[in-house]
């Protein structure tokens, strides 16, 4: 079968594309390069322009400005049927009047492939997505997960240059979603195509992607590997959208070692600088992951300390999430592994939070 691991990946290059609907700017000056074989995820809140960008890549929407190249060839104005991209739509868009087999055979039929080849490739594609016994059924006779697989097989059967997926799992329940995430990753490794994957589920983005592109309000805010974006986000938006963050704001007072001291509302903190140290007197924002904070006993050593009162807590099986009202920094949420937390903190209890200078993340406000 030609579909396994032998397809050379194709490079896609998007440069400075914009799209306006009426007076509304849905995509603003986005540039993006996708390497052959990469699993790229576009992540962003609803209405941030992910689908519009994907539709421009697929050729359904024409950009007002900018250009798109595939392997250095301009494809900006090519109609969708000439691009040879596989696409899985939100809601799958299977053809309701065609059987599973005919759905998957569709791209080959419109390419006028010989019968025997169609037969063979459809079979292989259905095997690839583990759906071999139901090929005579109609889409409405299948479960959501099975329909999803048919859509995948249909998008892969004609060995496309790359695969575009618009929230392909959002209609499925949590367990099935996790299962299909695994399978999509396996499939990606196996076929070696670039996948461009749209989602607004941050866990999905973190667990599946080689690279994540975060979009907000039509702009590309930040991109990087999952761990780059999670551990060292550059912007407050990403720090808060990808996982949750607390924010501590203040002015730089002095430089120490590889970091700086800043104070907000009378409380002093030390923080390791991201690159160059910010100038004395400049405003800084530091993002703190709830799981990087801990409750420290009075008198113990800690780079930063902040006292507060427990407002509320919730139990999540593996962890407690505690909301602490602090003096100077407002409510701060802390997550404590349930197995070390011992007794649950009590509402109204005073305590001290601590974190190391390396735990915080210096970020830019939007």
């Amino acid at each position, binding site marked *: 079968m030609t579909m396994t691991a032998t397809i050379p990946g194709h490079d896609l290059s998007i440069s400075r594309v914009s799209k306006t609907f009426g007076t509304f700017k849905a995509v603003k000056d986005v540039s993006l390069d996708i390497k052959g074989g990469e699993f790229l995820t576009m992540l962003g809140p609803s209405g941030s322009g992910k689908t519009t960008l994907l539709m421009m890549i*697929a050729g359904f929407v024409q950009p007002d400005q900018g250009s798109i190249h595939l392997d250095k060839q301009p494809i900006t104005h090519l109609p969708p049927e000439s691009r040879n991209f*596989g696409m899985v739509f939100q809601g799958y868009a299977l*053809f*309701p009047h065609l059987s599973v087999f005919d759905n998957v055979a569709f791209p080959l039929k419109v390419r006028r492939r010989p019968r025997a080849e169609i037969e063979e490739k459809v079979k292989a594609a259905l095997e690839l997505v583990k759906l071999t016994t139901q090929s005579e059924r109609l889409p409405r006779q299948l479960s959501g997960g099975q329909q999803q697989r048919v859509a995948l097989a249909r998008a892969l059967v004609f060995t496309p240059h790359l695969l575009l997926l618009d929230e392909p799992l959002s209609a499925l329940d949590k367990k099935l979603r996790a299962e299909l995430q695994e399978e999509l990753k396996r499939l990606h490794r196996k076929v070696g195509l670039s996948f461009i994957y749209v989602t607004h589920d941050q866990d999905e983005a973190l667990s599946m992607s080689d690279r994540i592109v975060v979009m907000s309000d039509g702009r590309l805010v930040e991109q990087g590997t999952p761990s780059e974006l999670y551990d060292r986000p550059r912007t407050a938006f990403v720090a808060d959208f990808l996982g949750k963050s607390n924010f501590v704001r203040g002015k730089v007072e002095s430089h120490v070692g590889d970091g700086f001291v800043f104070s907000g509302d009378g409380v002093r903190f030390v923080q390791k600088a991201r690159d160059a140290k910010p100038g004395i007197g400049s405003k800084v924002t530091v993002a703190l992951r709830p799981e990087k904070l801990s409750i420290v006993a009075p008198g113990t050593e800690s780079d930063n300390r902040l006292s507060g009162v427990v407002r509320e807590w919730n139990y999540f099986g593996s962890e407690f999430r505690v909301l602490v009202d602090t003096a100077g920094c407002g409510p701060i949420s802390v997550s404590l592994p349930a197995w070390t937390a011992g007794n649950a903190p009590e509402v109204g209890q005073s305590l001290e939070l601590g974190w190391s200078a390396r735990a915080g993340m210096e970020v830019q406000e939007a």
Partner: protein
Amino acid sequence: MTAPADSARSRAGLGLFASPQTRYWLLIAPALLLMGVFYIYPIGRVLWMSVTVPAPGLDNYELLASSASIQRMLWTTARISVLTTIFTLLLAYVVAYALVHSSPRVQRWMFLGVLVPLWISVLVRAFAWFVLLRREGLINSALMATGVTDSPLSLIWNETGVMIGMVHYMLPLGILPIFSNMRDIDQRCIAAARGLGASRFEAFWRVFLPLSLPGVVGASILVFIFSLGFFVTPALLGGGKTLMIAEYIKVQILEVVRWGVASMLAAVLLIVIGVLLAALSRLVNLRKLFGAG
């Protein structure tokens, strides 16, 4: 099923309104009575007359096999109805396609254009066509002024005229079922077809057209049934030369007074339409076609 509490309540209530069933029957009784007296009974009489007038027996039905003029008339009726249906559907499909693909604002205006003719009397419309189509009419004088033809075309007092008038009348009946079916087609399926390599035409041919067929089938049977029994337009635009079944029946009753033949033909029409409706109901959801559900 009725819950125990429910039945207890109805036992305690007035005997007359004992069950919801009785209540509903009472409510629709006047309407049923009206239907029975003015609709079911006359139809029954017609069917009865077709086998009893002038003498009991199937003599009237024998005419179907023996009378050349009746056969010719039935053939004309069938031919005109089939052609009307075909032309109506071709036009209706194009209009419905344009309707579903236009913006809501344009759609509203187009709908008005489709529906307004429905509110204008069929008589007025036939006369309007008469004004347009006659030898000295607008269309012929325009064609001759521009030099397309030298002598006026005969567009009226023949089957062409009848069909123009009928297609015009039937158009909304063709458009509405097709439109309501097309509106339910998932546009993403068409986009998916394009994305998977189908050209515009192929996406239409392989996906849109098959998905719109139920509407087309429904519309065609609807239009065909209406065409079969059409009276005013053929009578006015056919000029007495194009005799369809409805006018033939009228002539039998009012002019030659052969009630038996007339009622036999009416019965035949009734049976044909009944069979077509039965076929239609197997193919598409009738309630949806006629706007309910």
